[in-house]
């Protein structure tokens, strides 16, 4: 099963469960009074929470992305050293 199918499958399963419990189209009354009303906006809540979670994660990782200044400086020094050494060994650029 591809990841797309798995994703659609779980979304469908969730959707059916939500519809039965929150909308009760078949009039089965699976849950007592306040619960269907509480569950109705659940998908919207989940969507918004996931959006917030994503923004928070990307934002945090953006802020903590290492800049590696030391690595860049070290590389510059090594390039200088390499050029000298290679010239001594007879490399013509």
């Amino acid at each position, binding site marked *: 099963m591809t990841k*797309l199918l798995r994703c659609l499958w779980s979304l469908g399963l969730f959707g059916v469960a939500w519809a039965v419990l929150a909308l009760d189209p078949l009039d089965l009354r699976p849950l007592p009074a306040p619960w269907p009303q509480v569950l109705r906006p659940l998908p919207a809540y989940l969507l918004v929470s996931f959006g917030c979670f994503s923004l928070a994660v990307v934002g945090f990782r953006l802020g903590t992305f*290492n*800049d590696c200044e030391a690595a860049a400086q070290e590389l510059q020094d090594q390039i200088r050293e390499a050029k000298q050494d290679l010239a001594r060994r007879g490399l013509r650029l």
Partner: protein
Amino acid sequence: MASSPSKTVRPRSALQPPVSRKPRLFRGQCVCVRGSAFVAIMAASRVKYSVLLPTYNERQNLPLIVWLLVRSFEQSGYEFEIIIIDDGSPDGTQEIAEQLIKIYGSDKILLRPRAKKLGLGTAYIHGMKHATGNFIIIMDADLSHHPKFIPEFIRIQKEGNFDIVSGTRYKGNGGVHGWDLKRKLISRGANFLTQVLLQPGASDLTGSFRLYRKEVLQKLMEKCVSKGYVFQMEMIVRARQLGYSIGEVPISFVDRVYGESKLGGNEIVSFLKGLLTLFATT
């Protein structure tokens, strides 16, 4: 000092040679043979690392990356070879490579050019045909990947007996240099999206600084069809499908010192297309 083989079961390559009963031996390592004395075995000839360097117009960078590679390997003492796969660069990259062969020897530096620009995937296939090592290291020749991390790749590989060790910019001390905020944001966003959609079990899918068992890379090359960034992602995704184990080493990515770096709108579109294709087909 027997290296105790752990009992944990990890998905391992079916292609692994049948020596896995004994711990792998490395130069100067002592091995305790069951119920008897220590036997020192010099096994230097058993492990060799082949570095594949695909190049196109890297006249400036090639001697520097080779110099850094040779120094890193000489310090760590591992056996190595560097295979330069040049796609007919008009700037004389091959002439520089010839000079490097004279300096370092034709057993250490191999030039295996191709007539024209044919893409990264086929460059690896081409290079692998000439590789004599049991491990293949692939990296960019533009100095954005520093050879100083290679001993760390090797250490992690041995520690976890991994099939693949991938460099990661997104973990631990890893990072980037020379990127502005916009580029970092795109990178982080793309990485997050990739993690959510593909759940690959590796933190850096678009990086190309990696160590592979040779037979694992060969197998993966048969399976992977994408190009560019997506190619690197597909390698990891297919590796997971095939049950290969993946270790990670944080690396610092220093963006191109010489030459142009490329990330345009087209790149982003083709990245998204590739990501969705992998999401729908794997």
